[in-house]
């Protein structure tokens, strides 16, 4: 009995020494050019799957999330082309040979077996030691759901479908060529890049992205600058804005600002909120819940903001208005001069009031038709 104890004590004393020797001599080869030993590979793979599954199971999608919403799938596809396809390839597009030298090799998603929630978690948080990055927009828990919607439908997509979703009206880079690393650079212009999601008419491709037509050039340029400078968080916009020179950002802002805003045509089901209640709240605010009126800054029916650094709201897709107002209420609050004002305005809103405001502004009358103060 005593002897056995002595053995255990010796082993315990030896273990840290062995661990230090292992750390110092580094006998396990971490080179990407050499495969893991099969048991270690299985261990790491299994651990990763468990870790993702457990965390994804605790993730609730927001109430606006519809995995079959075409606009959300297009948005996810658009971002996939910007941020993911370089490593993961795309339908009909092989990965770059550079990527195939990675270990672990980025997953080809046709055969991946993740649930929507797991795709969300992976896109939101990334994976350590794999090269898979977390979401570029810090704190934007809402955005990766678009990617989850897209990836949930990924296996069924033909190359043509993918092009329609991700590139829409813009000419895609040459078909069937391998992906290039370092951005979506192809034969397209920066404007084509914007138009993939915002449309060539600036009307947002049916809710894929916010409507830019009719916004002021000041507002759009300031937003692009804030995205590029990491002062405003968005995993969609930061990578594309940061790739543009300041001159180009101003130019694109002017171009979209010059486009005519279209009268909002509510397509499909009306948004869930009550537009009449939303109008009352927008016009009067709520003294008891400390909600200021919206119109004092955004103008009577959301078509004519009071100052050029304030966005036009009329006709924006209801889902976008919901996402923005919740962001203003819950964060991340942008680090821009006017941001504390909007954050103060959104502080008292509850989810129902946000839905009402979204219903009102998404269906608010077009310019000139029903302007009132």
């Amino acid at each position, binding site marked *: 009995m005593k002897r056995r104890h002595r053995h255990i004590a010796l082993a315990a004393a030896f273990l840290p020494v062995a661990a230090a020797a292992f750390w110092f001599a580094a006998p396990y080869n971490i080179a990407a050019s050499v495969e893991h030993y099969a048991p270690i590979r299985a261990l790491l793979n299994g651990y990763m799957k468990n870790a993702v599954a457990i965390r994804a199971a605790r993730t609730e999608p927001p109430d606006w999330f519809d995995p079959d919403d075409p606009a959300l799938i297009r948005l996810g596809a658009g971002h996939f082309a910007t941020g993911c396809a370089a490593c993961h390839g795309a339908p009909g597009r092989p990965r770059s040979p550079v990527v195939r030298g990675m270990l672990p090799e980025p997953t080809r998603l046709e055969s991946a077996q993740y649930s929507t929630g797991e795709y969300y978690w992976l896109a939101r948080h990334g994976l350590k030691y794999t090269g898979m990055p977390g979401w570029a927009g810090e704190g934007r828990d809402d955005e990766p759901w678009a990617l989850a919607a897209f990836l949930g439908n990924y296996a069924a997509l033909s190359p043509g479908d993918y092009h329609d979703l991700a590139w829409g009206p813009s000419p895609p880079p040459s078909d069937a060529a391998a992906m290039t690393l370092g951005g979506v650079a192809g034969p397209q212009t920066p404007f084509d890049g914007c138009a993939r999601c915002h449309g060539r008419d600036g009307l947002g491709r049916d809710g894929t992205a916010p409507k830019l037509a009719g916004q002021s050039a000041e507002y759009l340029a300031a937003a692009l600058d804030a995205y590029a400078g990491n002062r405003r968080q968005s995993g969609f916009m930061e990578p594309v804005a940061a790739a543009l020179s300041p001159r180009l950002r101003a130019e694109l802002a002017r171009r979209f600002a010059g486009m005519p805003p279209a009268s909002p045509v509510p397509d499909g089901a009306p948004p869930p909120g009550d537009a009449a209640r939303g109008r009352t709240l927008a016009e*009067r*605010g*709520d*003294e*008891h819940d*400390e*909600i*200021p*009126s*919206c*119109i*004092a*800054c955004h103008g009577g029916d959301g078509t004519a903001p*009071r*100052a050029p650094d*304030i966005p036009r709201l009329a006709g924006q897709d209801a889902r976008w208005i919901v996402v923005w107002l919740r962001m203003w209420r819950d964060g991340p609050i942008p680090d821009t*001069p*006017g941001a*504390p*004002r909007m*954050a*103060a*305005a959104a*502080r008292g809103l509850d989810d129902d009031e946000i839905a009402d405001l979204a219903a009102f502004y998404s269906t608010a009358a077009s310019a000139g038709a029903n302007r009132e*103060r």
Partner: protein
Amino acid sequence: MPPQPRPLGGQSPPVEQAPACGVDPAKLCQGEYAIRVKSHIAVLAAPLLTGCGGRHSWLAGAGAEARIIETLFWPFLFGAAVLWLAVMALAIAAFRSRREETRGLVRAIIIGGGAIVPGIIVAALLVIGLVTLRALAAMQPGLSVQVDGEQWWWRVVYDTPAGAVVTANEIRLPRGETAELLLSSDDVIHAFWAPALGGKMDMIPGRTNRLTLTPLTPGSWGGLCAEYCGGAHAQMRFDVTVMEPAAFGDWLAAEAEPASAQALARQDGLSVFLDSGCGACHSVRGTEAAGQVGPDLTHFAARQRLGAGIAPLTDAALRRWITRTQDMKPGVEMPAYPDLSPEALDALVGFLMALK
């Protein structure tokens, strides 16, 4: 030299310099000693006595209610002093006496000092208190003012035959008339207290408490929130201005008017005010600014103070308030406007200071 007692308050009263007296500086002359003792008493008493005057003192007696409470205070103080002396005398006697001598007294002391005497005193105090309360309740108000506590300011609404007159953070009352204050709250429990004029009363969300004030001394008296109500509680103050009845009537009539033509003529400042979205929270009657969330600013410049009584209303303070709101009043709900251009700020301050 003996150690100097440190003054308790911020102000240190003058302490006489020790005159040169003899060779030994540590030795005091007789006359000097007397001066020093007096000055020590002054040093100790001054901080205590500073609480007895000024615009926040209930001993200022600027209102009938405050005077009634003061008359209640003196009998109470007298009674408390008598009791204290009696108890001290008993304690001293107890230390000096022997056990055998006092055995017969114990029962009398317990019954007399524990039940009969306190019973008489409490009954007498109850009668005095009820009579006082009756006097307070009997005041017939001629003016009704609704005061709502908000985090962290005061919404003031005068109920007049011509309609409600809305203002904020400053209450004006006519001298010699009883005003009824209807106190409520929109968020958490606050308490209304203008010590120089009367007692304090809680402001409770969902109910209205009634307080009457009958100011007697014209002047500007201070008020504050007397119930902790969140971060900026200590900066939730107000002013009560007591005016002659005729001047008060003029003021109330002016307060009911929309913003002055003189202010509205400042187009630049008004544009900055409206385009910056100030109207989302603030009202300026006569303009499209109709916000209800924050204080009504229609006659903003007629008030003495800024930010719910925390700073005198001056150009400089107003600039600081607009650009560095959180620095002046941490936690305040109003967002700051540090990004206004100097010209826009000039125009805005000019407009606001013209809202007489």
